[in-house]
């Protein structure tokens, strides 16, 4: 599948109908999602024929992308039932198979001798619940056996790198690229019509246990 084709398909997905500000529910746009997953597969071979988990999957944009790139199995995890229902509809619409689990990912304990190869995620940035971004990263590093792909604000770059290498069992922590994340005016308190923030696309490799 070509990048443009993937981006086009992701653009048709339904997004949050009633975004919850406390959960930092922002859609992952097709531009970022397609590039993230395309790079994960084309540069690193982390998606096709792999078991991929999407932490904080929301309406399933990253999960759908993984599935379209022929992941062997895709599992999306989110705390919000409404989002998971939208994700179900999206999967049906694009005729892809995605397993979904409703849970608090920071409290979930997954067993399984590293059944999950790759975790992909667009986690909360920690603007509503402080430290949420780190909690998601910590959880992902415990589950993935090969790689974690994640988006974090560029302003947190040094902090993330240090925590990953020192506390979250990372063998490596690289910023693959810097992206601009367009946030449309979703919430009443947003003053500007659109704002874009600098985010880093990270790739972390966990140390083998």
């Amino acid at each position, binding site marked *: 599948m070509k990048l443009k084709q993937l981006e086009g398909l992701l653009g048709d997905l339904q997004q949050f109908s009633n975004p919850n500000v406390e959960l930092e529910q922002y859609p992952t746009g097709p531009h970022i999602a397609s590039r993230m997953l395309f790079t994960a597969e084309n540069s690193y071979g982390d998606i096709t*024929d792999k*078991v991929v988990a999407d932490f904080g999957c929301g309406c399933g944009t990253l999960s759908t992308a993984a599935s379209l790139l022929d992941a*062997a*199995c895709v*599992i999306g995890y989110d*705390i919000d*039932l409404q989002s*998971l*229902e939208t994700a*179900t509809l999206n999967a049906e619409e694009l005729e892809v*198979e995605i*397993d*979904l*689990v*409703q*849970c*608090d990912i920071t*409290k*979930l*304990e*997954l*067993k*399984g*001798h*590293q*059944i*999950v190869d790759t975790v992909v995620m667009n986690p909360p940035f920690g603007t509503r619940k402080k430290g949420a971004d780190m909690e998601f990263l910590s959880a992902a590093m415990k589950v993935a056996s090969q790689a974690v792909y994640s988006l974090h604000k560029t302003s947190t770059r040094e902090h993330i790198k240090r925590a990953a290498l020192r506390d979250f069992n990372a063998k490596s922590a690289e910023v693959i690229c810097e992206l601009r994340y367009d946030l449309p005016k979703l919430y009443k308190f947003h003053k500007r019509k659109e704002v874009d923030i600098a985010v880093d696309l990270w790739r972390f490799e966990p140390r083998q246990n």
Partner: protein
Amino acid sequence: MRLIVHNMLTCNIKGVVNKFPLRIEAEKVVIKKEVDFNTDFLRHMLAKIEWKALVDGARSMGYTELPDHAPEAEESYSFLKKFHHALLELHLEEGSLVCQETGRKFPVEKGVPNMLLHEDEV
């Protein structure tokens, strides 16, 4: 919910020791047979799957063809077909996942298990 997912889920209620596997109570099972049969992937998974949890889970969902033990040596084509079916083609649409220690039921609705804990369980 497919059994590949069930093979990872545990009961994370505070203090519980016997957290895996969760027993399946199936009310509605759907079989979807469009999953690509990939022998490399299946061989790879065989080393990672908790076999007994898979067999018991499959039985709870009405599939009894899996052997009690995974083959030690070369896996036959027919074995891989059964493994593929159990792991990836059986879907629990409605039912519960039950903690073997506390009896707590995690509901499965429209194929989605709800693993959220109540305040006193955290």
